[in-house]
């Protein structure tokens, strides 16, 4: 009789341990699955992105240009930020983060952007593979709707030895994920 009880306890305990393991496993898998989904979505947007940069006209040291943004896989809102990066980093994609942006008094200097887009202050940016791209305060501008190509007018005044770069981000589950960039 005692033997039956102990076997029963053993089975129940095994079942419980199994369920806990399954729970943990399911939790981990859900997380992974979710991340994969975010990544896929970001890659989709990145693959559909179509950017055209207009002629760059320089008058009195200021460069004026516009670029059009369109996405063949995505119609929602998209975010962008523009800053100046030293020319020496131009050939290395790992330096394309606001970490190397031209700053004055600890603040990133942004070019003039027209027409007026709503601004968001963001503290974390991710690469498409969800690795950390930048942590720190950065301003993003929001294009609310990509349903038709949107011209962004920029007036650039890069410091000596710097070039402007524009980075595009999609907001997926509150994560700002890079979907494209363009040297200007």
């Amino acid at each position: 009789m005692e033997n039956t009880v102990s076997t029963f306890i053993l089975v129940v305990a095994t079942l419980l341990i199994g369920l806990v393991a399954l729970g943990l496993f399911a939790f981990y898998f859900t997380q992974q699955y979710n991340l994969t989904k975010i990544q896929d979505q970001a890659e989709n947007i990145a693959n559909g992105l179509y950017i055209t940069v207009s002629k760059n006209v320089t008058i009195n040291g200021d460069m004026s240009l516009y670029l059009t943004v369109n996405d063949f896989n995505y119609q929602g809102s998209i975010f962008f930020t523009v800053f100046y990066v030293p020319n020496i980093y131009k050939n290395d994609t790992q330096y394309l983060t606001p970490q190397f942006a031209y700053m004055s008094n600890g603040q990133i200097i942004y070019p003039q952007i027209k027409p007026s887009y709503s601004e968001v202050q963001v503290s974390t940016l991710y690469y498409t593979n969800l690795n950390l791209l930048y942590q720190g305060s950065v301003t993003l501008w929001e294009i609310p709707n990509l349903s038709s190509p949107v011209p962004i007018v920029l007036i650039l005044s890069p410091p000596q030895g710097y070039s402007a770069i524009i980075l595009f981000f999609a907001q997926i589950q509150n994560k700002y994920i890079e979907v494209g960039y363009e040297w200007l």
Partner: protein
Amino acid sequence: MVMRKGLSGIIGILIILLIMIAIVVPVAMIMLSQPTAQQQQIENALPYKNLAQEQYNDFQPIQIIQENITNKRVIITLPPVYFIYGNNSVYFVFTTNISPPVPLIIKYLSVFNGSQWVILNITHEKNSWYAKVVNSITNGGMIISPNESNTKYFGFPALQIKLPVQPYDGQPSFVSAVTQYGNVIYASPSTSLILIFPFRVISGNFSKNGVVSQWISSSAQGFYETFSTFISTERAKITQISNVEMFYAQVTGAGVLGITLEPNPYISKAIMTIGDQTEEIYPSAGYFYLTSGNYTAYITLYFAKPITSQTVFAGVYNYTTSIAIYASSYLYNFYLVISPNS
């Protein structure tokens, strides 16, 4: 002997294992299938990107061959759409009266005003298209097709849009249009318009004026012209016709052919190419050193003043020759009637 009832430990574990496999396998399958779905999305975007790239070609020249009953052929290089800035307006000129192969919708116009690019929206008011400065981005746009044309530009159906902002220095290249794919197209000056201005030779003939024994005329009816390039023209006027085939010649022996045109008020300069030699033959004579072989002579005429209406050119060749030439067209005179296409 005690009969054991209920599950044994091993069977319990096996059941748990089965449950886990039943859940893990489908989940893993879903996860593994994700890259495939994503790959499909990449392929999905590809045709659009190709189409977007192709749109640029609609503004590139294409070849058109026009033929008329007298076997005259004119080859003209034209793009399907011409985007022109002039008279404080932009024009989309349809050179072939058909819509561009890749449907064209202009979403915005943009003008560099001296300090920045100004984005303009296109609106339709009182049967006329206007561009307006915008501060917010809207989802407008205009279909560019000959059916929408509201004016004629040198005889071609065209769509005119008046600009509220003029480009810096009046330069057409500071005017651009954004298409539905986000492509940026720059305007051409109206002075380049002649590039799209076709003209035709409505009749042509050589008339024989005297005979020299070395020259053997054939019974060819008229001649065959090929107009392939138009360069250096101004505002819908023809200032030059290039590389017209003038005669075929069979040369025996080696010697010199000197050739020129008689004074002609319409012509300021003429250049002839025979074989690999190119010489100016008008106003002063050009000399070609020929050896035995078959040659085709091409002529390029530069007109003294641009031609705007139907004009007859007639001229006489003067030549000296030290060799025997059998020409398959009459050599002496040329006679062209050129008419701008209206």
